[in-house]
């Protein structure tokens, strides 16, 4: 899994990946102890879920992160990077390839990215989840579930365009703040370039200051619905090129 550093970045929050050199071999595993860049990993149950560094990568890179879940609603296979500080302004981007997932039924869904929070509030210890959900006729879409300060404290929005076959690029800008200062902007398969385009979607007025800021990033599969557990056991989803920043649009 290769992390692409952007020289225009004002402040790099976290850079999580593997050696990007064309000559470099992939590390044995995703964590620092295994030669990777991530703080830790979770693979549950270890007998049926898998998390591995595989070749090739998704962006002419050498390595990708391959994740699959066993047939359990408590299964997980993800990596986590603990940020050094609480981040109230958080941008992230990753590539995801769902080619190996069979068609989605209406209630299939699984989390692919999480932003744990510095402070637990209103029963949630996270600020954001990004999930794969169903589109019409077996298609897959991406849904953003931001914690918010009113109602049921979960404010979700599905990008109403199906994911493309192959590699998809997902980017987000989460701002933590009181009232209207709290907001999520997201981009799904935005046009190539590093100039920030209009967002694919926005969840406004999050009022999410109670959660403090983003404390970590988790990339990989977790929290499958019962339908996903039944319909997609051991099917692999691939990830690559995770990047996170405070200010600057990442793009490509």
């Amino acid at each position, binding site marked *: 899994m290769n992390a692409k550093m952007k020289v225009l970045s004002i402040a790099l929050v976290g850079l999580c990946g593997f050696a990007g050199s064309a000559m470099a071999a992939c590390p044995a595993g995703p964590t620092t102890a295994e030669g990777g860049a991530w703080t830790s990993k979770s693979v549950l149950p270890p007998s049926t879920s898998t998390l591995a560094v595989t070749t090739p990568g998704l962006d002419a890179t050498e390595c990708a992160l391959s994740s699959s879940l066993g047939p359990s609603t408590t299964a997980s296979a993800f990596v986590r990077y603990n940020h050094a500080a609480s981040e109230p302004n958080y941008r992230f981007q990753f590539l995801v390839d769902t080619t190996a997932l069979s068609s989605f039924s*209406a*209630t299939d869904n699984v989390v692919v990215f999480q932003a744990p929070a510095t402070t637990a509030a209103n029963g949630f210890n996270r600020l954001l989840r990004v999930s794969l959900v*169903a589109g*019409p006729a077996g298609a897959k879409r991406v849904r953003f579930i931001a914690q918010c300060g009113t109602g*049921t404290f*979960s*404010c979700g929005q599905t990008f109403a365009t199906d994911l493309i076959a192959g590699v998809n690029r997902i980017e987000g800008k989460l701002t933590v703040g009181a009232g209207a200062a709290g907001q999520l902007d997201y981009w799904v398969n935005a046009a190539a370039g590093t100039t920030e385009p209009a967002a694919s979607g926005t969840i406004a007025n999050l009022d999410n200051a109670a959660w403090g800021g983003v404390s970590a990033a988790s990339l990989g599969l977790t929290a499958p619905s*019962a*339908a996903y557990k*039944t319909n997609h056991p051991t099917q692999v989803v691939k990830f690559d090129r995770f990047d996170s920043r405070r200010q600057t649009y990442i793009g490509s």
Partner: protein
Amino acid sequence: MKRNLLCGATALAALFSMSAGAQTCASPDTSWHPDAAGTPALSGTTCGHEAGIISVCQGAGGAPAAAYVAQVTIADAPGGSFTNIDFTGGAGYAISAYLVPTSSGCNADAACTTVGDATTNMLHGDIPAGSYFLIITGADFDAPGACGPFTAAADGTLPVTLQSFTVG
């Protein structure tokens, strides 16, 4: 004659279970008690009942604000003999079903115990014993207000809450 009419009415009710009135979070359908053969199925429409559910399972999916709500009691196997509940939806929407513990609330976007849809059965093995709201609605990708007919068919009995009777 009167007895025959009553028997006939009972048989009809057993073949097709659908309670009159709106089946909402405030007034869910509590009549579904299929026997060992799974009879009756629960049939109805998601149109014209609960209009307040727009998000399910802690935001994991959206819903079109048109739902039929039932309340069921489920025992551990073999107390409840069913192994799965099969869902069939009609035109106009993509049937999606969510099972939420009664204690969590019906329209509280609470964590779901399990789910089902047109191609995915709800499995007894995913459901701990307890009382649940069965929320039958449309899919995340359905347009607001999308709704239509449905049938939920168990392949065995869901237990009936035992009542105490006094014979005088």
